[in-house]
């Protein structure tokens, strides 16, 4: 299966699905370890939503590829070079502040992206987006509220969340740098021009940070090409764990 030369709409679906799967997987690592029981449940719900969304994108992609392709072959049998998620979402969870900072940045982008995808000329993709935006609105509220609580909580929480927001800031530039897959999708009318999302994203982020009494981080962007398959070192470890069982028993079904 030639993942980087297959049908352009499939490549786009894989990119969307990869963001959802990798982020959902990271969130699922919190299960049993959350700061309080109620939040453990909330984080698991986020993970369930995102993995569920990934499945929808992958199932549609598999259908279009045909030839017996399945969501699981897509998820478990591609190497890290074949994954097309943003480098932001594969970053390790760190502490709760790190997780919320990563989530906050992505949720704001994801919301704007889905808003656009609802009007995709790819009708099946639009249908997925219309369902997903309700959940993502909820996710964005959840992460924003935590940024405010942590920013405007104690001195310790303010220091921690400031550091977390600064740590992930350099990863956000990739969200607005169109990959070749993004460009093809936009040209076909399937998805937005991601560069144009930067302005509204900054507005959303700025509003929440202001409410939290925090400053917009500064600093240069990282050189990131996750959407082209060049990831940080984190993804290799993540996939080694995630894909281990099917790869250990290649002739088994699960």
């Amino acid at each position, binding site marked *: 299966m030639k993942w980087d030369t297959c049908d352009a709409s499939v490549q786009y679906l894989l990119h969307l699905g990869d963001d959802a799967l990798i982020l959902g997987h990271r969130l699922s690592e919190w299960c*049993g370890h959350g700061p309080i*029981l109620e*939040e453990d449940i909330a984080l698991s719900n986020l993970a*369930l939503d995102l993995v569920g969304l990934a*499945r929808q994108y992958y199932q549609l992609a598999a259908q279009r590829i045909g030839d017996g392709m399945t969501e699981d072959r897509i998820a478990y049998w591609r190497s890290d070079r074949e994954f097309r998620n943003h480098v932001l979402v594969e970053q390790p969870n760190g502490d709760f502040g790190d997780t919320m900072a990563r989530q906050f940045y992505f949720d704001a982008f994801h919301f704007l992206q889905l808003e656009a995808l609802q009007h995709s000329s790819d009708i099946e993709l639009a249908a997925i987006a219309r369902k997903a935006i309700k959940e993502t609105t909820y996710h964005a509220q959840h992460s924003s509220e935590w940024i405010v*609580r942590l920013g405007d909580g104690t001195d310790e*929480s303010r220091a921690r969340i400031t550091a977390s927001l600064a740590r992930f800031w350099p990863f956000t530039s990739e969200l607005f740098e169109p990959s070749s897959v993004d460009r093809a999708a936009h040209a076909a009318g399937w998805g937005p021009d991601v560069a144009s999302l930067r302005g509204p994203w900054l507005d959303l982020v700025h509003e929440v940070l202001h409410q939290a009494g925090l400053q917009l981080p500064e600093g240069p962007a990282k050189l990131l090409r996750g959407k082209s398959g060049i990831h940080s070192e984190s993804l290799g470890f993540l996939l080694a764990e*995630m894909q281990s069982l099917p790869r250990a028993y290649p002739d088994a079904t699960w």
Partner: protein
Amino acid sequence: MAPSIDMEARFLDYVSAENKVEPKDWMPDAYRKTLVRQISQHAHSEIVGMLPEANWITRAPSLRAKLILLAKVQDEAGHGLYLYSSAETLGTSRDQMINDLHTGKAKYSSIFNYPTLTWADMGAVGWLVDGAAIQNQVMLCRTSYGPYSRAMVRICKEESFHQRQGYEIMMHLARGTKEQKAMAQDALNRWWWPSLMMFGPSDDQSPNSAQSMAWRIKRKSNDELRQEFIDKTVPQAEFLGLTLPDPDLKWNEERGHYDFGPIDWAEFFAVVAGNGPCNTERLEARRSAHAEGAWVREAATAYAAKQAARRAATAPTAKASAA
């Protein structure tokens, strides 16, 4: 008002007549204490019980399995929460209960001190451990303390898919490749006896049992529940084509039940005493999560206080406008 013998006798009559005891009712101190201990330990079991299964979420071998396992573990968190809530109606607090767990003062079901070593363990745990828990939980739906019984009814409704999920995994493995079938058999071998131990030793060994039965907290004896579980489960194992690791297991026509081999209670007591394979790791995981989350909880409390103060400062004086 000093409790008199008359109150205790009235209470006993009340529960014997299958009435529910509610939070504001008078109850013997010992009844309250027993329930706080039992409900909180039940809650702790749900929370600690998340860990051996959460272990495999990141390695679940299909996206569907990943979602199902994550949902199951999340349910267990929810069940713990319902149970902590029920216990709080008796005059304890979530923090007090958590503290007792972390300091080793409170116990949790010792089954969760065993490691989950393969994906087949997800099958065995769902099928056997949840199966045994369901046996107990169905009985507890009729327990005399209202909030506890209502929590159990809610839990039982949600529990239905847990055991099915585990059994489905076992079925798939038992019918799969040679390695998968061996994996399933191995998991069954390791989880069978500890599951039987979940019901606890014979009641004649347990000092609190008689009183719990009299107060209708407990509705069936440990041995009764264990026998019910075995009778139900043996045919399920046979259907899978797997062997139960008990050479003495045999249907007894006369009794109408399965005879089974002796349980190694030395193992049970060793694990309860803290020397099982994972006791340290389980408690450490819970302690760390709690400690590492302190700054988060404090931040939320501080923010809530600030917001309350801001609202109070900006609220129009209600008295003046109502005048």
